[in-house]
């Protein structure tokens, strides 16, 4: 059960002012989640998770709902941004201009052996981008 490991990603009490974002990752694929009041939920590093299976990228719907630096699918599906490099430029710029905050985004690419559940299959053109332009960590199942 998720709740045994993290009793906040699935809420157990009324903490609606608390926002959540991924602030770290270890080599086993354990994502550290930061929880704080929105205006305090500014972390120097933010991580966006993508799954990769059979040479295609997927975005987890649970995180689209649950994390504060979300609505990634608005950018990929609705506006057609298929470059993580461009996505991170936008997110960084938004944080800077709207929150007066500088942070760095990193793509976590989790390579799976089976198709991930509850995910949006991203466009065939979707690309994370070169390592010298996009911060990225790769986790292999």
């Amino acid at each position: 059960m998720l709740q045994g490991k993290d009793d906040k990603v699935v809420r157990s009490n009324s903490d609606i002012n608390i926002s959540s974002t991924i602030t770290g990752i270890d080599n086993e694929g354990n994502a550290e989640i930061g929880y704080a009041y929105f205006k305090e939920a500014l972390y120097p590093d933010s991580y966006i998770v993508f799954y990769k299976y059979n040479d295609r990228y997927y975005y987890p719907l649970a995180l689209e709902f649950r994390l504060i630096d979300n609505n990634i699918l608005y950018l990929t599906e609705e506006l057609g941004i298929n470059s993580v490099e461009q996505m991170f430029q936008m997110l960084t710029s938004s944080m800077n201009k709207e929150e007066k905050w500088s942070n760095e985004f990193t793509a976590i690419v989790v390579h799976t052996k089976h198709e991930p559940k509850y995910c949006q299959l991203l466009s065939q053109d979707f690309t994370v981008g070169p390592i010298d332009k996009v911060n990225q960590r790769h986790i292999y199942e």
Partner: protein
Amino acid sequence: MSLNLLHLAHNLTEEEYAKMVLSSGDYFPGFYRFTMGDRNHEDGQLTIKGLTSRYFEQISLDKTYSRSEWTAFTNKRLSAQDLRNEAHSDYAIFELLDQKYKEWMTAATEYDIAVIDIDCGVDELALDQTYFFMGSLIRLTEGKLLIGYDYLRDESTQEIVVDTSEIIRYTKQIYGENHKEFFLPADLVASLRFDNDNGYITMSDESLSRAVISDSNNIVIASNRDVSKHIPIRWAKDILLTDIEV
């Protein structure tokens, strides 16, 4: 606190997934999503009266309206935002994606149209009622949570098998007295499809009834169906069509 991403990919149960989605109620819902507090009717945006009047005109008189008429309200708002962006450079999205954003708002082949009863939030979820929740339309039916529910077509982007009594208890537990602020009665009631610059409205008898019995304090928003019909959160950023004056 940590979340194992492989567990998330392969071992998440339907109940865990449903509860994770329902845990996302937040007054600050993230980038490029409006909060509920941002949703107020603006003079000139499409209303239920305007939508149903244009629909009856169409079915009784074959009268339709052009894209420029349907998108006039949005185009007017975009012009104002252009001036503001030039002055203040507020929104990165406008700077980097100005053209894509405008096309997303004004160039859809088909829009879906939803009504949200903004003053009628509920203290407890009920079966067979649709709610606007964090940019999605969700609905509980016996044994299932429907995410991305479309009342007009009676379909959804996801069907999650759940114990509905447990889900009702759970949302009451975690939202408490704030429950009514997060679950607003709402439904997708119409679509507007363009063919040769003429906009054709589709409604069903049921969706027409749903529209006309909306609370008097409601808002009508649109979604670009061409690019969003397959994703669960598609009402997070409004497209506002025009209350066409005749």
